[in-house]
């Protein structure tokens, strides 16, 4: 109830904007391929839900690619962060490499990944998503593992706790909120990665392919519909992380409000 009240202004603004959009487009004689009205986007969505462009199966494909990339990128990010936090030499080697990888424009990498891992295979899209997800996860987990208050370490020292105990009782729980922040950044990037990968080729039943093909046929209401669905998938994944956060770290300032 409280969350409804807090989100009410945003909801009101959203629907008002939709109405204004609809009214402006239908009364200004604006051509549909420049900006379709919300109503025609909605009907394109319904018409192409399971037949035609097959937006619903496409959304499932794109979601699975993003989720797979999320999983790979997250695991890699955690492993590298753990390694760096444990051995500083590893950090000296891995950090510059990680920064360099994160600086590669995804647009440039996508065709290469499609070439390497098979343009028709979902693996190539997962790899592209994973590259994007890796960096925010790695950096956040690393910060969580290393930015521990000196007093906490001193307290553990007074208990004659070994480094394994410090890791398990202090560093790991300290890293959890950072990790969840990394996940929140990562989910949206994973979806972007998957869609961009599809953009450069792949099976047609995927959101990125629908965008390419509908746009080339000037069916922009379908393009918009695919974008809306992609956003909804992204928001859904984000909200899932938020829900996990509420359960996992109820004591954290971010969650307790």
């Amino acid at each position, binding site marked *: 109830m409280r969350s409804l009240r807090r989100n009410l202004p945003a909801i009101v603004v959203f629907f008002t904007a939709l109405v204004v959009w609809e009214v402006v487009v239908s009364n200004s004689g604006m051509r549909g391929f420049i900006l379709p009205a919300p109503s025609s986007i909605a009907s394109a969505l319904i018409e192409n839900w399971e037949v035609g462009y097959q937006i619903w199966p496409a959304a499932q494909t794109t979601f699975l690619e993003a989720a797979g990339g999320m999983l790979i990128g997250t695991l890699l990010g955690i492993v590298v962060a753990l390694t760096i936090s444990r051995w500083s030499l590893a950090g000296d080697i891995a950090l510059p490499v990680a920064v360099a990888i994160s600086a590669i424009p995804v647009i440039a990498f996508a065709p290469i990944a499609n070439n390497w891992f098979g343009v028709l295979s979902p693996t190539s899209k997962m790899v592209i998503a994973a590259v994007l997800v890796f960096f925010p996860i790695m950096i956040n987990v690393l910060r969580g593992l290393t930015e521990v*208050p000196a*007093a*906490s370490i*001193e*307290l*553990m*020292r*007074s*208990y*004659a*706790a070994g480094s394994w*105990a410090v890791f398990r*009782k*202090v560093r790991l*729980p300290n890293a*959890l909120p950072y990790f969840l922040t990394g996940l929140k950044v990562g989910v949206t990037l994973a979806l972007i990665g998957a869609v961009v990968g599809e953009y450069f080729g792949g099976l047609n039943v995927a959101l990125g392919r629908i965008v390419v093909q509908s746009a080339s046929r000037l069916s922009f209401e379908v393009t918009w519909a695919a974008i809306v669905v992609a956003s909804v998938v992204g928001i859904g994944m984000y909200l899932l992380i938020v829900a996990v956060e509420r359960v996992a*770290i*109820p*004591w*954290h*300032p971010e969650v*307790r409000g």
Partner: protein
Amino acid sequence: MTSQSVVQISDVTKTFDVPGRGTMTALSGIDLQIRQGEFVSLIGPSGCGKSTLLRLSGDLTSPSTGTVTVNGKLAHQARLDRDYGIVFQAPVLFDWRNVEENVRLPLELIGTERAAREARVAEMLELVELTEFRRHHPYQLSGGMQQRVAIARALAFEPALLLMDEPFGALDEMTRERMNSEVLRVWAQTGITVVFVTHSIPEAVFLSSRVAVMSARPGRITKLVDIDLERPRTVETRENRRYFELVTAVREALRGGEGPVELDDLELERAVAEGGIG
């Protein structure tokens, strides 16, 4: 060294290398023996090394020369044997653990068996009167309550020695006085030896069996004041003539003079007026 000596500090110096400014002597020629069951406060101006001296006793730092023993062992071995508990100025509680789990932490580390562990945690929470808050998280507690959790945690594995580094420095005066009585009650109930660092004269006098007065640059103990106030010490203690005399004696010692321990009436009046203020 006598068998009842819990902390034995012999001819200790501690120097730090300050980058660009050479070597700084934090402590010089420190000798201090703390007996079983004593409550000793270290008081002095900032930079006199009182916290450093406490940290030496807990092997959180090592002496440059001289030796520190706890329970007849070198401080390092005493730390490995978990002979002491420590309470810092900040409570240093883990946000992700509730009150009970925070108190349980040292018992988890030493691998106390589950049933014994739960019993001990319950006992400690009873001791600091936080039983009904055992499921609360640190952010749901006041500063004074958080510090009581830290005390319960420090006492959890029954150490012989409790080190307290300005534990109530961040609390308001009212809470601080309540916490002082609380600490004395815990001390009386457990019979533990306490080393207490403070910058508050009334606090040091109210709590201690002995007050070690320190001076700065280099840090050294200039005077040991025996606090012969009756126990148990209560709210009335703070209004007692002898209390004011001792507060004045410590203050004089801090100033570096050999002030009068017997007060004339004018001085007593002045002491009453400022008595509650650190």
